[in-house]
């Protein structure tokens, strides 16, 4: 009995020490989340006030290079894009951004993020405390884990997002670009790759519709964009046209004047790609010049100056 009592006391002490350490350590680690310049952290504070904001997944990251856009458009630009991020999560980030910053003049949505599943959702636990919206998505997708994270606060920091928050503690993350170049073998492989589809998820389409409503209500110019794919890979897509039509049909419920700026096949040189889905740094530069040539930013500047003197 004495042995059992000792073990019981030890177990109680263990639980208390674990919980106390959990609270103490999470308070320390939370400082990183709050102070970091990583995009998920930075948008939870005021002070960005960008003229151009971009929403999308990794294709949004590599298609639109923030420093280059700032140079050619002469406007403060901010990217909310993140690898594997579904439009539904992008919408939550945009809402958080607008909670703390004035509305941008131009909002660009890279719409192929409509096909992204919610695979980024487990990572959102890191920002569940700072952002009730991201917390709600996390709890919706992972109810048991969300409850566990309420008991053990340290679970929130078990994510790649936290590592990035740590890495970007003192420097901006807005200069992301991909330096790799796709290999000739991969270009050849893309020609015979299995056919693939661009199928938007219902949740992402709903989110896009809400983004369009939000843009209208806040008087934000909105551009829907499809960034470049490696042409050999794009040729294997079986429904690129119907995808664009489906997106336009959906957004026309709110704004019939909107259309998708389709640049899926705009860059033809394989050396400008990092892989079949992403431009590399040289490809981004080339693509930005194409957008500039097409008046993608200039038109915005004229309209914006008319609306917001």
């Amino acid at each position, binding site marked *: 009995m004495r042995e059992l009592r000792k073990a019981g006391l030890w177990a109680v002490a263990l639980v208390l020490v674990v919980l106390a350490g959990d609270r103490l350590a999470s308070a320390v680690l939370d400082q990183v989340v709050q102070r970091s310049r990583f995009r998920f952290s930075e948008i939870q504070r005021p002070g960005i006030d960008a003229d151009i904001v971009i929403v999308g997944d990794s294709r949004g990251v590599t298609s639109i290079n923030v420093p280059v856009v700032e140079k050619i458009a002469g406007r403060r630009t901010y990217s909310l894009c993140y690898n594997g991020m579904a439009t539904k999560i992008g919408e939550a980030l945009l809402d958080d951004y607008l909670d703390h910053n004035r509305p941008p003049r131009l909002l660009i949505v890279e719409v192929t993020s409509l096909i992204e599943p919610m695979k980024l959702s487990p990572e959102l636990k890191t920002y569940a405390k700072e952002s009730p919206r991201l917390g709600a998505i996390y709890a919706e997708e992972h109810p048991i884990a969300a409850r566990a994270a309420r008991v053990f606060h*340290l679970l929130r920091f078990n994510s790649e997002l936290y*590592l990035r928050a740590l890495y970007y503690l003192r420097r901006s993350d807005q200069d992301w670009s991909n*330096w*790799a170049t796709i290999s000739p073998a991969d270009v050849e492989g893309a020609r015979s790759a299995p056919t693939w589809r661009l199928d938007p998820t219902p949740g992402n389409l709903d989110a896009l519709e809400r983004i369009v409503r939000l843009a209208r209500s806040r008087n934000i110019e909105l551009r829907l964009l499809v960034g470049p794919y490696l042409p050999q890979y794009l040729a294997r897509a079986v429904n690129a046209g119907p995808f664009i039509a489906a997106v336009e049909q959906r957004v026309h419920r709110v704004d019939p004047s909107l259309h998708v700026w389709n640049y899926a096949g705009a860059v033809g040189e394989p050396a400008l790609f990092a892989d079949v889905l992403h431009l590399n740094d040289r490809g981004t530069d080339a693509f930005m010049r194409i957008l500039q040539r097409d008046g993608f930013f200039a038109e915005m500047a004229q309209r914006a100056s008319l609306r917001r003197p």
Partner: protein
Amino acid sequence: MLFNTWTFVIFLPLFSLAYFASGGRVRLWVMLIGSLIFYAWWDWRFLFLLLFSSILDYALGILLENAQDPGIRKRLVTLSVAVNLGLLGFFKYFNFFVQSAVHVSSALGLPVTYDAWRIVLPVGISFYVFKTMSYTIDVYRRTEKAERDLLRFTTFVVFFPELVAGPIVRASRMLPQMKRDHRFNYTRTLDGLTLIASGYVRKVAIADSLAPLVDIRFANPAAHSSLSLLIGVYFYAFQIYCDFSGYSNIAIGLARIFGFDFGINFDRPYWSESFSEFWTRWHISLSSWLRDYLYIPLGGNRGGTLRTTRNLMLTMLLGGLWHGANWTFVAWGGLHGLYLVLQRLLSPLYQRAVRALRIPKIVSALLLIFVVFHLTCLGWIFFRAETFARAWEVITDIGSMTDMSFAAVPQKFLVIKAVLLIAGLVFVEAATFLPKQRRPVLAPIPGETVTVSAHPPIRTAAARLAFVAASVWVLLVFGTFSGNTFIYFQF
């Protein structure tokens, strides 16, 4: 049932409650039934195979002890070995050998078609077959008395902590302990919890964090730079080490709580200065089994260089084959056999060179650790790759040194996290090499063997509490809670 599943989290307290609430033979029944439930959770049909193997070797053990005629005794032990190896051969190697024969036949111009049978490999068969086989061999050698209590013998075979992935605890160690009645012991429980905590950190935090980074590299080596592949190989070395030593620590810790001393199964293997030392530190229960029941009966190192070379190669080739029905495992074993042979030949030359060049002892030791670790990593490439072609692709891609920049390494943040976890492990292991720290970790329990372990000594209740609490925090921040299976389950 896996140790890293919620089912086990529910099973363990229920089993512990029943175990410590009972005593004597009732406790043996609790152990037996609990272990059978643990095994049946995977597939109840294979319980019959497990019980058949147990009962057969129980009966053969008694017959062996009673028999006086050497011829009869030899036939009995041959029957035990044949049946055990037959079971293993059928379930694990049947398709492998038939397909190999088909390939040879086709290569000789005699094409044969063969549709592989769909044979399910019973979990743990490689472990429990070796356990029961060594028992009958020991009884045959008269180094072990036959167990006459069927309940005790069957419980020894099926005891759940070591049933599915070892360590291979022999009857000579386990049966005497099973004759004692184990009451709840505070110190022992804390020792066990400390080992279990370290096991979970190794498995859930380190091995499972490394697993996806290794998988993507071995799945498509062509898509990765030389540095990225090299990182993948290093990561696999630590993944398999942490996966298996993690399982072993959990198993040993559980047994410790229930009053049993399994010994240790891993003792900082990557700090080995030679391959013979490596094999006294890696999967100790298997390597000592192979030494006692294969290498020494073959003649060991008696009989000259050629015979020793043959014995080493045979032992390591069969040790490789034990791990799986694939020629890549045989190649891995063969490579280690070759290392051991070369070490025997080159070691005197190296020692002479060290003396002649007056190389400091520490420098020589670090150099040897570096060489042994990297040659071990070379072996792991064959162990991990599904085919020789894939293994060769990894080796040649690394050797080409085409892109050694970190910029070309994918998933950098996860790679950095993995490196930090490995660094933590190396730091903890290095701490155990401090002279003052080289003492047994676990407190001696009267009547039990004192066990040592690859962790800094943790003696007081407060230190154990701090260690377990720190382990929980590490698991919360770095754990992968997807219930990944243990690598050695497939063996």
